[in-house]
């Protein structure tokens, strides 16, 4: 069936081989970049040795790159994020691992006061990336489940990305490392090992600031990012049997946001639901809603709706956390309400 020499079958086979988990894609991006560029170093707690980080993203890195490029840090987020800023000012490209996104607050000054303002104030570029393992839904409690992206979106001088697929996890990390500004890269813990996907072997950088239409549809748009992309996809499949055709926009980058893609979808479907697992109040979705109100008001056939975490610390116990986070059912119900509005 397959002609000799055709790339058809082989590409299918190699595609299968190239299925990586979300976390493998992160490791691969980092490893490839480090092989390419000596200026890239890894800095964080427990990132070195055989251990290679709390989630083993840098397992084996010290063997390959040596201790001088994999800097194991004492528990000093404020100091080592600031030190990464100094290394970046000297022309290196540090990739910082904060063990959990929740602990990023211990280095908050170093990020929002120093690194973020630096280029504006006196022109010193700060090309670092913070990898921040974020999000919950896996009973990790109030201090290992947070989604603090809105704090950083509110900070001029930072870029904020939040990939939802293995391909994007790789592609956005490549772009984040190559960018000349401080980038906070929110990786999604619930997707780490649960999600696999085809990842191009050669590094294809996904540009920062470009959203993606994850599902095309005509009746309603869900704007989302991170793990909620997949909950939204499930909800969309569920309600498609009821004749509702849902479009899903995966933002991928939260700052700078791809307003054009969001607005194009809003104008196309006229009904918008915004979903994220960060708490809803003053969350990233509020900015999306405001954008649509400002720029696409005439296109709307229903009010813009938002689903997000409740305004409580992320609770630990499964029934509580379930009540905290938007679920597939919540999303499906909200979409149904919108289309019948």
């Amino acid at each position: 069936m397959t002609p000799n020499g055709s790339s058809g079958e082989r590409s299918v086979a190699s595609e299968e081989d190239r299925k990586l988990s979300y976390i493998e894609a992160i490791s691969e991006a980092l490893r490839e970049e480090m092989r390419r560029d000596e200026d890239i170093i890894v800095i964080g707690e427990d990132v070195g040795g055989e251990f290679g980080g709390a989630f083993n993203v840098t397992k084996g890195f010290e063997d390959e790159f040596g201790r001088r490029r994999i800097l194991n840090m004492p528990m000093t987020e404020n100091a080592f994020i600031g030190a990464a800023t100094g290394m970046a000012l000297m022309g290196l490209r540090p990739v910082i691992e904060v063990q959990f996104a929740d602990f990023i607050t211990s280095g908050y000054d170093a990020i929002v006061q120093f690194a973020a303002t630096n280029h504006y104030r006196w022109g010193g570029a700060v090309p670092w990336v913070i990898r921040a393992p974020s999000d919950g839904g896996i009973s990790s409690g109030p201090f290992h489940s947070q989604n603090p992206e809105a704090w950083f979106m509110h900070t001029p001088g930072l870029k904020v990305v939040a990939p939802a697929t293995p391909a994007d996890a790789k592609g956005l990390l490549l772009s984040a490392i190559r960018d000349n500004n401080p980038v906070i890269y929110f990786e999604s813990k619930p997707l780490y090992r649960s999600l696999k996907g085809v990842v191009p072997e050669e590094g294809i950088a996904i540009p920062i600031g470009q959203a993606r239409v994850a599902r095309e549809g005509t009746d309603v748009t869900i704007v989302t990012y991170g793990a909620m992309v997949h909950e939204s996809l499930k909800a969309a499949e569920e309600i498609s049997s009821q004749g509702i055709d849902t479009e899903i926009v995966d933002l991928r980058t939260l700052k700078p946001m791809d307003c054009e893609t969001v607005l194009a979808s809003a104008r196309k479907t006229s009904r918008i639901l915004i979903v994220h697992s960060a708490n809803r109040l003053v969350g990233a979705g509020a900015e999306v809603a405001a954008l649509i109100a400002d720029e696409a008001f005439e296109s709307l056939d229903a009010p813009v709706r938002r689903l997000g975490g409740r305004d409580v610390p992320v609770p630990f116990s499964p029934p509580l956390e379930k009540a905290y986070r938007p679920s597939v059912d919540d999303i499906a119900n909200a979409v149904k309400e919108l289309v019948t509005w």
Partner: protein
Amino acid sequence: MRSLSDEELIQVYEWMKLTRVLDDRIVSLWKQGRGVGSTFSGRGHEAIAVGASYALGPDDVVAPMHRDLGCYLVRGITPRRILANQLGRATGVTQGRDANLHGIGDLSLGIIGFVSHLPQSMSPALGAAMAFLYREEPRVSMAFVGDGSSSTGLFHEVLNLAAVQRAPFVVVVENNRYAYSTPLHQQMAIDDIADRGQAHGVAAEIVDGNDVEAVHAVTAEAIARARSGGGPSLIECKTMRMHGHAIHDGAEYVPAELLVEWERRDPIAHLEKIFFERDIVEEALIEEIGQKCRRIVDDAVEYAESSSWPDPASLEEGVYAP
């Protein structure tokens, strides 16, 4: 303790004098209502700012603070650029983006500009030292920090990390006895901040911060040690803040006797005394240096006051690096 030749000592004097004349002029401009926003005086800190930074090499990096006017000058920021920055002009180092000595950074001169959040520039300065280690370059990084700032968690994090990394890093603590209105004994229960260095395995020394020869000698030694792989040092320079915290502050909370005592130990007068005692320079040269400094500062005031304001259309420029 002498690490400077007579000739170098005269150069150091020139920098200290320029620092003083510029500092005095800034104070008087603000008192005349010609300033913009607030500003600081580093009067009394000239021996530290100049002495420590004079010991650096051209490829070294330094992160000064708000009392270190002399350091910026020694590294090569001109009085013109400093005053234009203070007056919020387009020709200032930050082009009107940041105030007074904040944000005076210039990587071509090896200066990391500081932020208000003290001592947030310590960690980037340490990072610069870590970059030198990584690249195996024989360069050293220096950070200035106050007594007040030495009580922060970051100060301790940085010293600890510097020691663990054996970074080529020198921390100059300007212990001027006050953090804003708060005297030392309300800040800490120890007598010497140098103890905080020792606690982390950082070589620590105490020096008279008003004696530029001593400051230079100790700093030069620390820099040489750092450069040859001997790790970080902390130098506690004991001095006194001679004006208020910032220009608006009359510092009535400082006992008058303390100021009288430290005025007697003025670092510039001290150096002049050494010149005469050792017969290094004639009075006429001192006079000449003073006049030269005043001419430089007159020119800088003229330049800054006649410089244009930043264009509001540039407001959003430079938030991101290209």
